[in-house]
């Protein structure tokens, strides 16, 4: 277990804003699961994954808080899955009631229920599972991370905008891949695309990459993608990252790849510059010495939600933060060209999804022309009528 307290710099000044001293304590709890190395070395996880974003969020909140008499203290804790329950217990015992969780869905659900007894507000910054926004939603659980439905819809809208209506869906065989493939099937139905070919690419285990492994990939993948019906685009559903990255340039029929390879949906990446994001990037790099990861952006955003609620509603009480975040007054600038807000019926943050090719932002969904009676952002993910979540009623 590692605890790194981050103390915000504090400077006082005369203020026309009514200053009420508030101490805001938050903790980022990250569960580190045993995992295989990623296909690309660029995706190796830094030790401070997510925590670096929290450090920046804490610093940004602290700067604003300095003008209002608000102080922020954000701790970060990394544990193994076995240590998670004890760590949560300790964080609660330390008096923290605002907790940012980086974990898989079953752990998020169990820890959120454990924390609910103490009135804790939890922010999910990692788990994309639709059921957490649906049957398994919780009134004390807000989702910063987009759901698989949101990211799949973001990809689907771009495909439809491009008039790539016939898809070759190539799905992995691990449970997460299967869930992601389901999200793409759902997105195809929702936006009128056709899945011309629906195939499984089985995970046979072993390492993701080997020295000069590309030789074998180059010979094998074209064979595995032969004899498919006509399609405009290949949609890879490979959340566990064992084949999606190899698909571009190795298909039998040359087609663009989207999803888990080629053009990928993400909340943020280190080259995103639009809407003032360059300032975020330089601040982050100066503070942490590396490029930002989506996990860092998500934790930063969770802390900014807390900061915004404290600033506007003058409360660090978990119910107060939650109520403000879910209210009509809440709005937050997040370097995505429009304000982000919460769906008050399942606690999901509405946000644009970036489509990233590994070096630049290629496009941003929702795409032009996809409309919704509440917000175009609600064309991404579960809509109110599709969700059976009742914890927010």
């Amino acid at each position: 277990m590692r605890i790194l307290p981050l103390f915000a710099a504090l400077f006082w000044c005369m203020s026309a804003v009514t200053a009420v001293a508030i101490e805001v304590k938050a903790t980022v709890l990250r569960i580190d699961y045993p995992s295989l190395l990623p296909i690309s070395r660029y995706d190796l996880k830094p030790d401070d994954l997510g925590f670096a974003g929290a450090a920046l969020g804490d610093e940004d909140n602290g700067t604003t808080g300095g003008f209002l008499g608000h102080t922020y203290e954000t701790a970060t804790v990394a544990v193994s899955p076995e240590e998670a329950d004890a760590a949560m217990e300790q964080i609660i015992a330390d008096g923290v009631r605002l907790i940012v969780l980086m974990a898989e869905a079953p752990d998020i659900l169990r820890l959120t229920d454990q924390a609910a007894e103490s009135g804790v507000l939890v922010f999910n910054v990692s788990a994309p599972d639709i059921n957490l926004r649906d049957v398994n939603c919780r009134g004390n659980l807000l989702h910063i991370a987009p759901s698989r439905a949101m990211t799949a819809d973001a990809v689907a809208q771009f495909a439809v905008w491009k008039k790539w209506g016939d898809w070759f869906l190539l799905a992995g065989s691990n449970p997460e891949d299967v869930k992601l493939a389901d999200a793409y099937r759902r997105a195809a139905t929702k936006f009128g695309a056709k899945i011309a070919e629906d195939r499984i690419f089985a995970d046979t285990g072993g390492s993701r990459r080997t020295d000069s492994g590309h030789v074998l990939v180059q010979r094998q993948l074209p064979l595995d993608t032969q004899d498919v019906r006509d399609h405009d685009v290949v949609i890879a559903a490979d959340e566990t990252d064992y084949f999606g990255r190899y698909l571009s340039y190795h298909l039998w029929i040359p087609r663009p790849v989207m999803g888990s390879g080629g053009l990928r949906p993400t909340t943020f990446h280190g080259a995103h510059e639009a809407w003032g994001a360059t300032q975020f990037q330089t601040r982050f790099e100066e503070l942490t010495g590396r490029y930002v990861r989506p996990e860092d952006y998500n934790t930063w955003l969770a802390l900014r939600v807390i900061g915004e609620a404290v600033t506007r509603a003058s409360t660090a009480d978990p119910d107060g933060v939650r109520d403000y975040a879910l209210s009509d007054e809440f709005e937050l600038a997040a370097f995505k060209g429009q304000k982000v807000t919460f769906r008050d019926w399942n606690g999901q943050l509405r946000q644009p999804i970036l489509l990233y090719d590994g070096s630049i932002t290629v496009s941003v969904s929702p795409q032009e022309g996809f409309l919704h009676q509440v917000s175009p952002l609600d064309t991404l993910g579960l809509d109110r009528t599709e969700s059976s979540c009742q914890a927010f009623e």
Partner: protein
Amino acid sequence: MKRLLLTVACAALTSGPALAGKAFVSNERGNTITVVDTETWEVITEFPGGNRPRGITVSPDGGTLYVCASDDNIIRVFDTETYEELPSLPSGPDPELFILEPSGKRLYIANEDDNLVTVTDTETRTILAEVPVGVEPEGMGMSPDAKFVVNTSETTNMAHFISTEDYTIKHNILVDQRPRYAQYTADGKRLFVTSEIGGTVSVMDIAEDGAPTLVGKIGFEVPGVQPEWLQPVGAKVTSDGKRLFVALGPANRVAVVDAQSLKVLDYILVGQRVWQLNFTPDEKFLLTTNGNSNDITIIDVAAEKAIKSVQVGQQPWGVVTID
């Protein structure tokens, strides 16, 4: 229709100032400054403006042009007659917007990356002070009596009122998300602060001693335009204090607001992603920079109509005019 447009253009020309004025447009992507004749609306020339030129202003005598060269981390200085580059001014990192005090002596610069406002002496070319402000300082406004400089911080979402006497913050006012620009009325009694993501303009009354009170917010609504795209950025108010013009970014419109009643009277269609705007010195025309259509739109202020667009360099950002 053609004839009508021509008549309007002629009327505009004949009612223009006796001496040909100039507009200087900073082209953020093109790394140039475009010079436009404000009588004929012809482009006179385009010259290198440093890397990523954004904020742009002139000395009180109109002879010296100052440009925030954001990626060079300096203020580039040019002669407005010869376009010759003069010695640069230190600015602190990533200068975006600045404001020159009426005497022309001190320049107040927002440093986006460092949460600072830098005060630079234009004569000695030295930094006089660095004032810590909120996260991502951007907009800079100055009270007409030059006693206060107002900085807006985009992530902290405040207007910080900095005393020009001792360089300390005297007041902070929370505004809506991502405040971009601060503009006082000429009598100093009112201040407008635009919020790009919040979609509003915060209106403050300013007391004799400079203390602000938030009195209202102006919202915008255009049929057929998604509310998300109504993003107020630049703002200018006529010197009689009657009209406020607000650039609405990707809505491609300038809002015309009654600066007294705060009612939005009209929306003028201009180029794409309208960012900043500025009057000609006689206030007959208002020029807007349209970043995505690479042009400026000229608005007849009295008629409250757009009369012409002029192609400039790539991604025009800011504009300033001289007699």
